[in-house]
């Protein structure tokens, strides 16, 4: 009798990637906007920064002073990267946004590869393809080719647009450095996609790798050159683009590091894919608790369980951000000696000529919009639950609609407010500790809370839409988006004052630069209360999907 093994023909290696051309076309079709938007946005940052070079670092003694202050500031280095020659436009651009764009390219690569591989597999769409004339590695190969091509396109765009800044070799080095950083993370994404059955977990793993790389870079660049920690910069893939030193005597050999790592990671990804079953990960899914913890009870317990990860992430993010910018206040004061910058700061800082006050106003204006994103996100969950059909499971129990809506609404009002106060306190903390003025922490936290009614108005608008017209739930995001433009870049790019006033935060008192105005705070609070009440009434009365 013949056994089964003798009946099967010997497989050829090429059969595992058969059908890669149609798979590539499909992957491109599914994510063309994703890649197009990411690549164009990331590219645009580079020439825009280079064009604004002279307004930031003027061609005189003050400019040289400012460049020296920037290079000497540990926080600036930790956030941005190693400064090599800030008096050259190309090298300055690399310092100001190069490592930042490289890190974002890493995020783009990770998300792009996972969405074309593990996410397709998890939803079951890939099963149809696999059952056709398609090999085990076809989809991974297509996703890899697509990801690497888009990183290549980003590299070429950067190199071409920076080529006019001499020497052109610097432009090429910068483009390649950033593109290759993306390529490394195409590799990380491909490996992560093999490890777990869930696309979400794969994303967290790979984004975690980006986070660790960024953190290593920040620690290394923030430490003095003599410190042992400084050597860590060689370990971080998002630092290699800067270490290749575009425009400052290019060290081309550094670019071999990402090439080698990319190849190694891709080899590992394909190897792992051969060792796993379709739909499964290398790491098996861990079982969870068979019985719910006592806290997981009722709509409130469920809402907390669904949102706690998000709340923790935002809390940590806002804390790190606030401490980092808070440590910049002295540097800010020095930089304000440049009249052009002083004027920019004055406009961002609510018109205060005291640079410290202007700094806090500007930083709170940035923080409050970030926190508004968090607030709208928290309340939007109410609609996502309804959309996915899960809210009817809860509402078919002894949970009233009011109670159900409140379990998302109350956190959306309370947590962002607390986070805003935390942002104010931590922004003030570093300089208060250094100057021994602890009272300032409470003062800036209070200044932050004075902006909270603006958050409540946005949440109120969102609640009205939840209650009456959930189809229009994009509106709160438009309000937040406009506030972002107005508070983050509006004063710098010179938008008219009248337009900048058109946010829920503009009418509120901008402490400590302005006087406290209880009228504005109370009026906006009353508007928010009214909106919430109208919204809840609607939510109790409408048909639920």
């Amino acid at each position, binding site marked *: 009798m013949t056994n089964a093994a003798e009946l099967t023909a010997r497989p050829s290696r090429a059969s595992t990637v058969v059908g890669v051309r149609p798979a590539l076309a499909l992957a491109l079709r599914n994510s063309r906007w994703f890649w197009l938007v990411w690549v164009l946005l990331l590219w645009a940052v580079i020439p825009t920064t280079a064009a604004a070079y002279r307004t930031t670092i003027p061609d005189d003694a003050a400019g040289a002073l400012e460049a020296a202050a920037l290079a000497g500031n540990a926080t600036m280095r930790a956030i941005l990267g190693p400064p090599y020659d800030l008096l050259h436009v190309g090298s300055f651009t690399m310092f100001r946004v190069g490592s930042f764009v490289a890190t974002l390219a890493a995020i783009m690569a990770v998300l792009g590869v996972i969405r074309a591989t593990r996410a397709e597999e998890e939803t079951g769409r890939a099963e149809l393809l696999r059952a056709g004339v398609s090999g085990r590695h076809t989809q991974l190969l297509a996703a890899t080719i697509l990801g690497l091509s888009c990183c290549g396109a980003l590299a070429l765009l950067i190199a071409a647009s920076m080529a006019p800044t001499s020497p052109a070799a610097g432009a090429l080095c910068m483009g390649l450095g950033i593109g290759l950083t993306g390529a490394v993370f195409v590799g990380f994404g491909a490996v992560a996609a093999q490890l777990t059955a869930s696309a979400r977990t794969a994303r967290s793993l790979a984004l975690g790798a980006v986070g660790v790389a960024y953190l290593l870079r920040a620690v290394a660049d923030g430490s003095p050159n003599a410190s042992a920690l400084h050597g860590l910069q060689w370990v971080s893939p998002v630092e290699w683009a800067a270490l290749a030193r575009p425009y400052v005597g290019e060290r081309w050999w550094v670019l071999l590091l990402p090439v080698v790592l990319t190849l190694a990671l891709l080899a590992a990804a394909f190897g792992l894919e051969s060792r796993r079953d379709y739909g499964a990960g290398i790491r098996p899914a861990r079982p969870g608790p*068979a*019985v*719910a913890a006592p806290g997981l*009870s009722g709509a409130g*317990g469920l809402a907390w369980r669904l949102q706690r990860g998000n709340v923790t992430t935002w809390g940590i993010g806002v804390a790190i951000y606030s401490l980092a910018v808070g440590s910049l206040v002295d540097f800010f004061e020095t930089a304000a000696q440049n009249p052009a910058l002083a004027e920019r700061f004055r406009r961002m800082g609510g018109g205060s000529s005291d640079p410290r006050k202007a700094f806090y106003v500007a930083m709170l204006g940035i923080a409050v919009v970030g926190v508004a994103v968090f607030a709208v996100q928290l309340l939007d969950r109410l609609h996502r639950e309804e959309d996915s*059909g*899960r809210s009817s*499971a809860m509402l*078919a129990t002894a949970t009233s609609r009011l109670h159900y809506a409140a379990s998302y609404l109350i956190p959306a009002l309370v947590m962002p407010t607390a986070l805003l106060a935390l942002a104010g306190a931590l922004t003030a903390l570093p300089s208060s500790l250094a100057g021994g003025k602890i009272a300032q922490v409470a003062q800036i936290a209070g200044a932050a809370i004075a902006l909270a009614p603006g958050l409540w108005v946005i949440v109120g608008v969102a609640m009205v839409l939840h209650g009456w017209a959930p189809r229009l739930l994009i509106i709160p995001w438009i309000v937040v988006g406009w506030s972002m433009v107005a508070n983050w870049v509006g004063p710098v790019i010179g938008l008219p004052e009248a337009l900048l006033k058109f946010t829920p935060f503009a009418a509120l008192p901008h402490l400590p630069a302005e006087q406290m105005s209880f009228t504005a705070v109370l009026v906006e609070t009353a508007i928010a209360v009214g909106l919430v009440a109208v919204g809840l009434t609607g939510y109790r009365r409408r*048909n639920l999907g």
Partner: protein
Amino acid sequence: MSVAIRTRGLRKSFGSSVALDGLDLDIGTGEVHGLLGPNGSGKSTTIRVLLGLLHADEGQVALLGGDPWSQAPELHRRLAYVPGDVSLWPNLTGGEVIDLLGRARGAVDGHRREELIARFDLDPTKKCRSYSKGNRQKVALICALASDVELLLLDEPTSGLDPLMERVFTEVIRDGRANGRTVLLASHILSEVETLCDHVSIIKAGRCVEAGTLTELRHLTRTRLIVEVDGPPPALHNLPGIHDLTIDGERLSCQIDSAALPAVLRSLSEVHVRSLVSAPPTLEELFLRHYQRS
């Protein structure tokens, strides 16, 4: 007999599409009541109105002696609901969902919970994202069946279950009926309704077109008869209540109204019958009769 659910003249439309068009429904306490209808006939809309998730445009609803729109939370303590397409929270385990929904309704009967998990063969430690459709359905069923409620609203509850699990479901529902629990089972699976339900309402385009006990409904339909005789077959075509009569040599087949049965048997007794097959009316025939008429 007291009434668990009564609706009168329910109307509900979504934009230009009419989902309920004057629905009357009567379900007595302790009944296992089948709500039959094909997809799009208004079964799910009816259940969502009964749950107070949708507000009827017109008509009256009484459920367990209350109004589901204005008294939903109080009434929901006394009922449990299983949707046909269960979506669960991907990051919670099945066990967590069972406890969460049970606690939100009232207390969870731990002993009954364990028993049902064992009977339905569910692994409660798996995250909901990894459950198949059938397993998600089991989670919702265990959750509903483990609670000590007066009324179960089940919307195609066995979709995705394998035949073994369907049988477990049937057993559990029968146990519940013995305890006096009222069940509304919306379904398009006729055999399931036939095995479980004592009462049936057939709905079509948002109206109830036929309602009653299964026995009553059977009475309304015809018995199929196939007879083989030696010699010439009897002259049945003269009798009232005979339909689709075909005679093929010595073989005769027809459909008979229930009222005509005695007369047919009398005339058959006068000839020499070699074999006789009589099939009782099935729910399927009943159902098709209403749906083929249009």
